[in-house]
């Protein structure tokens, strides 16, 4: 018998060798108690959270929690059904209405996760004979959506407008074209030149899908994302987003102005063949989204946090993913996985949690310590974080 697990041997060995150095397993952390959007207890230690994507700190918002409790009482723990059968409650409609208002778009469709939103929309709208042109650094859910559909898949170099244009021009006449972009690329925290890229995509007859998972609630005058910030949201055919970042719960969505968009509810398999979100989740999401419409002050404070942390870490001598802060993600580049894990552990001992990101999630085989800031991080916390990085950086020999 061939052991089907033998293909994982190289990864098992990498993991064994890493843990043999005595380092804490970076992929096995448990939060024993969560005190606030920015603080939790990990291994009995009070830990500042700097790797949660909880950009707007909505997880503990009193109105959000109250809405969830009320929905639990009124509608129960779960729907036990698909959106197209018994799984659409008043709350699912209400959160879709909130999304339509938030983005000022005609249609909104809520999925059980952001991953499923990309998987479902991409695999359904681009089919045999169509072409998907996408950035090589796209999120796994985008790649999996491409793989699940039958379209021809054509990647181009990250954020390279010319490379994208050349590929679009080589696609056979008459073929359907979908360009897939992200507002913020989550590994390095850099943004896309969407205005220019969308212009080129449209000139070449492509429809455009933009994943704004890491920008919703924070980037753009109304928090609609990078496309809004660059003044090109009207040219985006499909915006994909998530409830598991700024919104502070779980779920995914697509908003669109396409006149035939509603047919997606019948043809999109990752929407049809799974249970809908629990009533408490859609109630918390709905309340959170409505509050994010009026969160200008929080957005301003989050930008300030991002600028201060970026400058602080740069001044201490760390190598960062972007020259300037472009989002709420500050990525610190590590020389290799072993020293990255050492640095990660040193930070944990200081009382700071960040994400250790490694290939294949990262571009160019990089090991990254990815920091995602929260609007609820105080100015003092950001200074504390910079001090922790400095001490841990010396301990791990990074600076």
């Amino acid at each position, binding site marked *: 018998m061939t052991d089907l697990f033998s293909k994982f041997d190289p990864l098992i060995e990498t993991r064994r060798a890493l843990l043999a150095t005595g380092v804490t397993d970076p992929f096995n952390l448990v939060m024993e108690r969560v005190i606030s959007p920015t603080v939790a207890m990990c291994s009995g230690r009070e830990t500042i959270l700097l790797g949660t994507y909880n950009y707007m700190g909505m997880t503990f918002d009193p109105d959000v929690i109250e809405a969830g409790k009320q929905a639990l009482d009124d509608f129960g723990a779960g729907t036990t059904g698909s959106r197209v059968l018994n799984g659409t409650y008043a709350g699912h409609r209400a959160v879709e209405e909130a999304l339509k208002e938030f983005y000022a778009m005609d249609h909104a469709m809520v999925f059980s996760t952001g991953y499923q939103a990309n998987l479902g929309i991409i695999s359904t709208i681009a089919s045999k004979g169509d*072409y998907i042109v996408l950035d*090589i650094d796209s999120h796994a859910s985008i790649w999996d959506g*491409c793989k699940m559909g039958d379209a*021809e*898949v*054509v*990647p*181009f*170099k990250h954020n390279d407008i010319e*490379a994208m244009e*050349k*590929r679009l021009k*080589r*696609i056979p006449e008459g073929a359907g074209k979908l360009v897939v972009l992200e507002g913020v690329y989550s590994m390095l925290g850099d943004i896309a030149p969407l205005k220019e890229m969308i212009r080129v995509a449209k000139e070449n007859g492509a429809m455009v899908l933009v994943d704004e998972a890491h920008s919703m609630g924070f980037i753009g005058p109304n928090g609609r994302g990078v496309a809004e910030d660059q003044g090109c949201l009207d040219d985006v055919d499909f915006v994909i987003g998530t409830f598991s970042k700024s919104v502070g719960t779980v779920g995914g969505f697509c908003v669109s102005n396409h006149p035939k968009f509603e047919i997606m509810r019948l043809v999109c398999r990752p929407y049809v063949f799974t249970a809908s979100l629990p009533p408490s989740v859609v109630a918390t999401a709905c309340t959170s989204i409505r509050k994010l419409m009026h969160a200008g002050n929080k957005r301003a404070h989050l930008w300030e946090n991002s600028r201060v942390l970026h400058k602080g870490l740069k001044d201490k001598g760390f190598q960062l993913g972007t020259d300037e802060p472009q989002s709420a993600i500050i990525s610190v580049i590590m020389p290799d996985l072993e020293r990255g894990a050492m640095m990660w552990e040193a930070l944990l001992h200081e009382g700071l949690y960040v994400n250790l990101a490694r290939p*294949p999630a990262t*571009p*160019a*085989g990089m090991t990254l310590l990815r920091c995602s800031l929260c609007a609820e991080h105080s100015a003092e916390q950001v200074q504390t974080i910079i001090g922790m990085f400095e001490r841990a950086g010396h301990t791990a020999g990074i600076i």
Partner: protein
Amino acid sequence: MDRAATAEKIAALIEPFNKKGVAISDATTFAGDLEFDSLTVMDFVAAIEDDFDIIITMNQQAEIENYGQLVDAVVKLQG
């Protein structure tokens, strides 16, 4: 462009990516013999696409494991 001319052009394009100077035949594999990682594959494919003004989609790339298969595919894609 016939197979020989195409092969000659690709041989020149592969040179900067063949860091270890592996001797190349039709049976040379990209992942095994040339040890191309995913990033190198993308740059190499882009170089070929731009030179021949063609698209080699991911779907087509999945069928190409060795040098001979690549040359055949590029000959075919030029039409």
